[in-house]
């Protein structure tokens, strides 16, 4: 997304004339690769260690061996059978919340993003600034008042707690901002054509603009899903019912229940990370570009 916003590049045939035989440069390069590889390992090893440990036996789990001896699924069985609420329940709860929040962010974010980018109405700039301004407000400041609001709405009890968390996470200023920026880069010609064909604003939005914005929609979907799936703070505040817990909440509790029984604990850690890992493997580009674009100021 950032790339499309960048100034038009000139053909750069003249650059990259590295002096031949520059030894300083070559050794710097080797040093660089050494550092990069070591650092990349540092990023992966702890996760690999988690997975390895989840297949170990308890006494084996504190040994510094890379191959479990013997390989056992006991840790996974315990993770699935011994927890209350069951780990699959937590998984489902996380999926419900993350799935819904992803949809609301994409839908509401694209609607508001389109309006702020293209439609003319009084107070537009001011309202957009107001939306961006909410990024300055720390969640913790909102904790007590938002909790009180949810209580008043009855969304802090029973199954309605799902509704409470979803409402709080339903739309983020980042989603609106990212989509607005993307809509701004789409040429106006297509909308003009739609207008001449007699399409109204909603039709134009739905039929013309949304399909064109699919890369930005994907980035917003990924960022929202990741944020909601990993989210700790709001579920902790709202989800007082054990059965409604999400994976991060359960994980925190299991840390005290399993204490030093590492194999089942690491199985839950691996399970909690797995969906995001799969998303990351397939949609790495959207993660990276979404983060980068949210950092570029508009």
């Amino acid at each position: 997304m950032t790339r499309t916003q960048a100034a038009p590049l000139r053909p750069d045939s003249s650059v990259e004339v590295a002096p031949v035989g520059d030894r300083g440069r070559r050794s710097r390069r080797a040093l660089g690769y050494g550092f990069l590889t070591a650092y990349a390992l540092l990023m992966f090893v702890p996760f690999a260690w988690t997975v390895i440990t989840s297949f170990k036996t308890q006494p084996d789990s504190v040994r510094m061996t890379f191959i479990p001896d013997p390989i056992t699924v006991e840790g996974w069985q315990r993770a699935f059978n011994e927890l209350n609420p069951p780990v699959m329940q937590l998984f489902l709860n996380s999926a419900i919340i993350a799935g819904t929040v992803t949809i609301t962010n994409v839908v509401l974010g694209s609607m508001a993003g389109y309006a702020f980018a293209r439609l003319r109405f009084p107070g537009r700039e001011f309202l957009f600034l107001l939306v961006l301004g909410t990024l300055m407000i720390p969640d913790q400041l909102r904790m007590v008042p938002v909790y009180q609001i949810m209580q008043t709405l009855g969304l802090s009890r029973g199954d309605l707690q799902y509704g409470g968390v979803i409402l709080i996470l339903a739309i983020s200023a980042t989603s609106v901002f990212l989509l607005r920026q993307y809509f701004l880069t789409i040429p106006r010609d297509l909308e003009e054509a739609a207008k001449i064909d007699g399409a109204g604003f909603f039709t134009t939005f739905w039929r013309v603009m949304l399909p064109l914005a699919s890369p930005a929609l994907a980035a917003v979907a990924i960022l929202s899903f990741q944020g909601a799936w990993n989210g700790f703070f709001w579920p902790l505040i709202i989800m007082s019912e054990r059965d409604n817990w999400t994976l991060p909440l359960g994980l925190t509790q299991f840390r005290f229940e399993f204490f030093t029984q590492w194999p089942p604990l690491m199985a839950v850690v691996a399970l909690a990370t797995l969906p995001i890992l799969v998303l990351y493997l397939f949609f790495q580009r959207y993660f990276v570009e979404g983060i980068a674009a949210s950092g570029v100021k508009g």
Partner: protein
Amino acid sequence: MAAAATRRRRFVIRYGSGREIFAGYALIAIPLILFLVLNIGSILFALVISVFEWQFRGGAGEFVGPGNYERLLADRTFHKAIYNVVTYALWVVPLQMALGLLLAVIVNAKIRGQTFFRAAFYFPAIASSAAITVLFIFIMQPEGLFNGLRAALGLNPIFEALGFGPRHNWLGSASTALGSIMALNIWTTSGTMMLFYLASLQSISREVYEAARIDGANAWHTFWRITFPLLKPAHFFVATVSVIGALQLFDQAYIGGGSNGDPNFSLMSIVLYLYNAAFRQVNLDYAAAVGIVLFVIIFGATLVQRQLFGRTPAWQ
């Protein structure tokens, strides 16, 4: 009559037809209501709550004015929380920025496997704070991977000299718990900082570098004299994000040290203090006051950084 018609025409040119205005408001209505109630409104609500004796279910009781703020500013645990969080920020922010910048510069150079390295460095940031903290607790426990690796690499004499035994309990000792959490967060977030820097690095025009090369500047000079100053807006942004993140330290402290920030309050943070006030002591008005003070601290820190890094230059 004519004047009114002109005014109306001007209005339509500026804002579009009535249908366009209606469509605009209709499309932003739901998000805007949510933002107004749950964000903007909640600041005002927090202010109100903080000056009353606020009942958990009953709402406003007696007016107490600045009482909560006075009590808060005199509380020793709160002082400890501020001390911890400031110490944390003073270490984590510079290290995170330096590491993020270093990684961005390397990944931005023409290297093999650029995409792979970029993806690898961001990798720890995709996991949830809960998962990563539990994983970290496992690695840093006395029989964990960290102690095992330093023994295997023969680094123990160095650690011994620093006063750490071969089975040091990193998160269980008051002297090293906060440092461990710092390491955890530098590890997980430097990739995010790298992405922010990378976006800015890629927007620097090539011509600047060509001019420097023609003038015979070497890589070291080019970096410090050209790249670094041109990244000023990125420095500001990254520093702000990093400071705000540090001041909001919560998940890792709570999962690592429980609600008291054990051992011995070494992991007590401002937000942990706030959480305890609201949900352990069920003192909502006091907790709201903590929230307001935190907001003031964050806002103040952002203003200071703005002064430090200057205003965003016009070309950005």
